[in-house]
Every structure is written in structure tokens, then in C-alpha cells.
């Protein structure tokens, strides 16, 4: 990366992080809401651990993986609405008048997602452990959990950026939240894949990449170190990231038609 590009990425990353931290109304729900659902679901579905074949006798350990995924959803909203606001206010035009590289804009914006991913990962883990979550992979596993949280949050952040660049509207980005929520539900979020007895649901969950991201988190929490599950989880996050960034870059080229 040239020094100019580095400087631009640095400046925009700084701005992205500042904006994230200066909007507690945006990131505090991203912390509290998933934890609330964790408490409710693990209380309400505690007895499913009695089902034959359930991988653990601690439902909260099973369910906390969903918390990490829900956090990633909020990342879509945060990065997307921030960028949409830049477009709506004309701030993107201001940036376009500088020697800014498009790559710097996208990369810098993701810094906010990365910081959010770290904060979420740490908070969910700490609160989860306090609430009875067990991390079978130990301290090292906990670190990898946070890294996986960052990877997933960042990958979903690119989708938010694409949505913002494509639509130019904060409202349209907000409208994605229920769509992603649905996507999260149609997975192994509440029960393991092999305990989904409804055929169509099982079929959808099997092809839903979210199921495999959840399995990656769960492998660290329930089983310990499972290289295959982890590779698949990080691989899916990387693939989502690549897809999202490509789509966002294409949308940026259309939106930033400077000559």
C-alpha cells in the first residue's frame, strides 16, 4: 500500500471509529439487545438440552453463538446507515473532490465495523461467561472467538456498505434489518441441524451459510479445537467479505462518477 493510500485509510478509519464511538444510541442496542435475547432464549429453551443428541447440557453455551451473529447484523446497520448519511448529506461529494482512492474509502469505513466487532466480541464473551457459558477451547479459544466475531462483523459490514452505496438511503438500509433477521432465524440458531425435524426448515438451514458460522463459534465453545469447523467459519466470513467488498466497490464506482 502506498504511503498516500495508507494516510487516507488512516484518516478515514479514524473518522469511522470516532463516529461509531460517538453514537452510543447506535452501538449500545447492538450490545444489549442480543444479550437480552440470549437471556430469554436460554431461559425458555433450557429443557431442549434433554433432547437426545443435543451437543451440550448448557443451552446458554449453545445459544451464545447466535448472540455473536446478531451483533454482526447490527454492524450491517451501523456501517450502512453511516455511509448512507454521507451520501444523503453530500459528504461523499466532498470526499470525491479530494484525491481520495475509492479503496481507501471502503477500507477506512470498515475500521468502525472492526472496532464494533472487538467490543461486541469481548462484551458478549464476558457477560456470557458470567452467565454460565463454557469455552471448551480455553483462553486461546476465547481469543479466537473474538477474532471470529471481528471477521464476521467486518464481513457483514461490507454488505451494509453495499446497500448504502446502491440505494443512497438510510431508510433502505434500515429496511434490511428484518431481512437479515429472517436469514439468521432460518438456520441452526435455535437447535442443531440434526435436530431440525421439519423437512423444509432443515433443508433451508443446511444451505444457509449462517448455520456454518454458528457451528464455527460453537466448535470453540462446546467441542474445543475443531480445525475443520473453524476453517469453514473463517472461510465463509472471508468469502462474504470478498463478495461484499466487490459489490460495494462496484456500487461505489457507479455512485462516485467523478471523471
Amino acid at each position, binding site marked *: 500500500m502506498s504511503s498516500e493510500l495508507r494516510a487516507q485509510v488512516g484518516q478515514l478509519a479514524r473518522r469511522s471509529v470516532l463516529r461509531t464511538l460517538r453514537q452510543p444510541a447506535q452501538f449500545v442496542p447492538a450490545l444489549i439487545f442480543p444479550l437480552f*435475547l440470549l437471556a*430469554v432464549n436460554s*431461559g425458555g429453551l433450557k*429443557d431442549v438440552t*434433554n*433432547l437426545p443428541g443435543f451437543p451440550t447440557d448448557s443451552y446458554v453455551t449453545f445459544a451464545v453463538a447466535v448472540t455473536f451473529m446478531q451483533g454482526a447484523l447490527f454492524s450491517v446497520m451501523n456501517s450502512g446507515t453511516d455511509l448512507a448519511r454521507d451520501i444523503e448529506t453530500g459528504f461523499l461529494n466532498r470526499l470525491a473532490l479530494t484525491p481520495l482512492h475509492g479503496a481507501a474509502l471502503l477500507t477506512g469505513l470498515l475500521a468502525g465495523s472492526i472496532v464494533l466487532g472487538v467490543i461486541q466480541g469481548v462484551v458478549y464473551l464476558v457477560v456470557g461467561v458470567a452467565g454460565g457459558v463454557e469455552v471448551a477451547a480455553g483462553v486461546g479459544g476465547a481469543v479466537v472467538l473474538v477474532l471470529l466475531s471481528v471477521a464476521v462483523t467486518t464481513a457483514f459490514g461490507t454488505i451494509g456498505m453495499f446497500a448504502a452505496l446502491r440505494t443512497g438511503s438510510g431508510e433502505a438500509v434500515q429496511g434490511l434489518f428484518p431481512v437479515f433477521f429472517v436469514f439468521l432465524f*432460518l438456520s441452526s440458531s435455535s*437447535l442443531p441441524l440434526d435436530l431440525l425435524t*421439519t423437512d423444509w*426448515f432443515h433443508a433451508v438451514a443446511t444451505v444457509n451459510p449462517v448455520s456454518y458460522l454458528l457451528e464455527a463459534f460453537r466448535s470453540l465453545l462446546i467441542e474445543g479445537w475443531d480445525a475443520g469447523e473453524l476453517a469453514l467459519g473463517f472461510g465463509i466470513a472471508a468469502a462474504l467479505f470478498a463478495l461484499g467488498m466487490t459489490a460495494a466497490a462496484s456500487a461505489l464506482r457507479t455512485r462516485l462518477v467523478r471523471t
Partner: protein
Amino acid sequence: MSRPAHGTETPGFGAIARAVAWRSIHNFFANPALLVPSLIFPLFFFASFAGGLSAVGNVPGFDFPSGYTAFQFVFVLLQSAAFGGVFTGFGIARDFETGFARRYLLAASNRNGIVAGYAIAALVRAVFTWAVLTAIALVAGMEIGGGGADLFGLYGLAVLVNLAATMWAAGVAMRVRSIQGGPLMQMPVFLILFVAPVYVPLDLLSGWIHAVASVNPVTALLEAGRGFISGEPTLILLAFAIAVALGLVFAWWSRGGLRRAEAAG
């Protein structure tokens, strides 16, 4: 109708309520952005909970006579009733924010008709959603143990929940008069719905969730609804008393909101 000096008649309560209701209903059915989510989300929750969690019906101690699909149907029905009211509140807030509500305030001699109109519209929208939801549930093989009177009771409860939620959201909307009040309308409803026996009956809950659900008024509504659908009615009096009480309390709340909105001009 009242007759002012210049001789034209000003619309009374009924006319205002009808006019407000007509606009909301018309906009709902004419606008896919409003219509589609209000159908999709209850259907989606039903599919996820009843479909995705169907194995919960095999948990030892779960002995609901009509099966897990019917068990979850009741929750989704009441949830859609509640959120239908909340989304009506969003519409009220938007009307105030854009200034459209001022038209109503100027035109209506009896402004309670405005709130009544919104409530009627919310109910019409909810009934439409329930019709679709019920049809899908039946196609999916939901068993109904209850008879006509039981189902009347179930849907009657849903009507009351819808009205109560609409009044709650209307009260917030008329105080905040901005769509920024959306989370304030939505979050308490979401929280109170989910700290209830959503996935399993009350007696299969334990720990803090059991303690909270035991005192949560929504629990009585759910248990009564599930009793109706399974043909083993329970807690009927308590459930209806709670539903009516909530409706009255929130009606008073929304009336206060209307006074605030009037004072703000």
C-alpha cells in the same frame, strides 16, 4: 354533528373515525412496503418457531394436546396483534412529523375520533393478517382442539391485545410526534412478549425467566389462548380482565397523548 354559524356541518366522532380509518386502510393495502412486511413477519415467525423448533414438542414434560404448531400459533397470533398496534403507532408518528395529522386536528370537532380511526384501521389490518396466518397454519397441518366458541375467545383476545397495543403506541406517538419514537413504542412490547412462555409452557420454565413470566400479564393471555385452541380453556376470566384492563389503561394513556399533541399545535 354540530352546526356552526355559517351553516355547514362539521363532522362528528363517527365521521372522523371513518375518514381516518379509511385513509390508513387504503394506504396499507395500496402500499406493498407496508402490506408485505405485515404479512411476512408473522408468517416468518410462525415458520421459524413452529417449523424450526418443532423438536421442542418432544421435550419431556411437553404435553400440549394440539401439538407444537398450534402452541406456537397462539404466540404468533398475539405477537402479530401487538406489533400491528405498534406499526400503527409508527404511522401516527409519521403523520404528526409530516404535519398531516394537523389536518385531522383542524377538521375534527371531536378529536377522539382521530384515535378511534387509527384503532379501527389497526384492527382491520390485523384481521387481514390473522386470516392469512390462520390459512397458512391450517395448510401446514395445525390441529385445533377447540370449538367455535373457543376460537371466538382466542380471536377476541387477539382483538383486545391489538387495541391495547395500538393505544399504547398512539400515546407514545402523539407525545413524541416523530418516527424517532419508534423504538420507544416497540421495545417495551417486544420485551414483555418475550419474557413470557414463548417456546415452552410456564411449568417447563425455570430460573429467572420462570419468575418473570409468572408475573407477566402476557403469560395469562398466552395460556388462555392456548387453552382455547386446544379445547381446554383456562384462565379465561383472568386473561380477559387483563386484556380489558390494559386496553383501558392505554386508552387513557393515548387520550393524554392526544391532549399533548393538541397543546403543541
